[in-house]
């Protein structure tokens, strides 16, 4: 088995932080922990060559580094690409993750790395790259390299990879359906009884914690402010011209309300499968309160109401859609010079 290994300046034997700006070197054979790696990956395993690069250089010149690594791997074929272990070195982890992903995507070569769960490389790459959980303790190097070797062998051999717990990699964040013998009811009661007896149990789903959004500064002068109405309740013009889906919507639309003092039932319909839409259909202002805001605009309470309202459907919509929808809508809103948004949500 032919291994290509990536190490930073420290593990590559060049030196510590003062050498973080070192550019890429390619050495024949194994360097540093690479020797341990190759001994643990089996009799025929050999590190064909080792990439060594300074952490700062790797991050500042990521594209060039990636291109150089790919070029070398195109010239000299390997069976597996191993990066690190990186422990809690953040620049190292980010570089390792990026290279692993590029190698997989561009060359179809399996890759594995290792880092501590808090390493910024994890959030960026965990869903596409196998990252062995290394913890922060560098004295555990041998154990971690052993896990990388075992996982690397399986990947190179095209074997099925087991659960994160079994194989030692950080949960990648994906779900797969699995048909089991026990009904959900039985699993539910089993789990409760274990919890009540203070026995260990494994929840079938972990929660995800999200970083909070910092609060944007309040409006200083409402009477000069430009506002826009946005909704995720799926209100669309009759005929749904932008074909906004009623579930897991991938599209949003901006609809002209210039000169209108209220929204009329005959002009709109609702594309949203998650609530009883007849009340909004009877009077769309019950979802998008144009009439109230138009009055406030006329009375000078607000400066201006933007000429369009923006709409999409929030039902069963995963973050992988809504992050993009939110970003696109935000870009449009910024372009229009809008100061504040009223978002109505069902």
């Amino acid at each position, binding site marked *: 088995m032919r291994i290509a290994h990536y190490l930073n300046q420290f593990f590559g034997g060049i030196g510590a932080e003062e050498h973080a700006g070192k550019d890429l070197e390619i050495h024949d054979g194994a360097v540093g922990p690479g020797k341990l790696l190759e001994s643990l990956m089996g009799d025929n395993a050999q590190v064909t060559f080792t990439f060594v690069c300074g952490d700062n250089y790797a991050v500042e010149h990521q594209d060039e580094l990636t291109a150089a690594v790919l070029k070398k791997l195109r010239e000299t074929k390997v069976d597996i690409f191993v990066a690190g272990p990186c422990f809690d070195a953040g620049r190292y982890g980010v570089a390792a993750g990026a290279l692993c992903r590029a190698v997989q995507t561009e060359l179809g070569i399996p890759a594995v790395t290792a880092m501590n769960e808090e390493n910024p490389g994890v959030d960026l790459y965990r869903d596409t790259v196998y990252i062995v959980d290394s913890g922060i303790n560098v004295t555990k190097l041998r154990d971690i390299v052993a896990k990388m070797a075992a996982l690397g062998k399986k990947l190179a051999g095209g074997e099925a990879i087991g659960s994160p717990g079994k194989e030692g990699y950080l949960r990648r964040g994906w779900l797969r359906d699995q048909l089991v013998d026990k009904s959900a009811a039985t699993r539910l009661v089993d789990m409760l009884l274990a919890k009540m007896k203070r026995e260990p149990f494994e929840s079938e789903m972990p929660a995800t914690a*999200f*970083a*909070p*959004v910092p*609060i*944007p*500064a*309040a*409006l200083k002068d*409402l009477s000069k*402010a430009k506002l826009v109405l946005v909704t995720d*309740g799926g209100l669309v013009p009759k005929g749904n011209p932008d074909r906004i889906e009623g579930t897991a919507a991938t599209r949003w639309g901006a609809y002209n309300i210039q000169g209108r003092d209220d929204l009329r039932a005959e002009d709109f319909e609702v594309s949203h499968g998650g*609530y*009883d*839409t*007849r*009340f*909004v259909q*009877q*009077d769309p*202002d*019950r*979802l*998008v*309160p144009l*009439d*109230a*805001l138009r*009055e*406030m605009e006329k009375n000078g*309470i*607000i400066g201006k109401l933007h000429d369009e309202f923006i709409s999409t459907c929030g039902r069963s919509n995963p*973050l992988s859609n809504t992050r993009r929808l939110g970003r696109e809508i935000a870009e449009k809103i910024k372009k229009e010079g809008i100061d*504040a948004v*009223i*978002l*109505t*949500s*069902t």
Partner: protein
Amino acid sequence: MVGSNRVVLGTGIVHVTGDAKLPAAEEKELRRRLVQKALDALQSNEKQ
């Protein structure tokens, strides 16, 4: 990052800024009050 810092409670899922049980004039007044609450929130730096 996920979440909203300024949240005002509407009148239920099926009519966020309305109330089908009210006569028209009262419903409009309810809507005005809800929207005013939203505008007040936009002028405050307090997370709600």
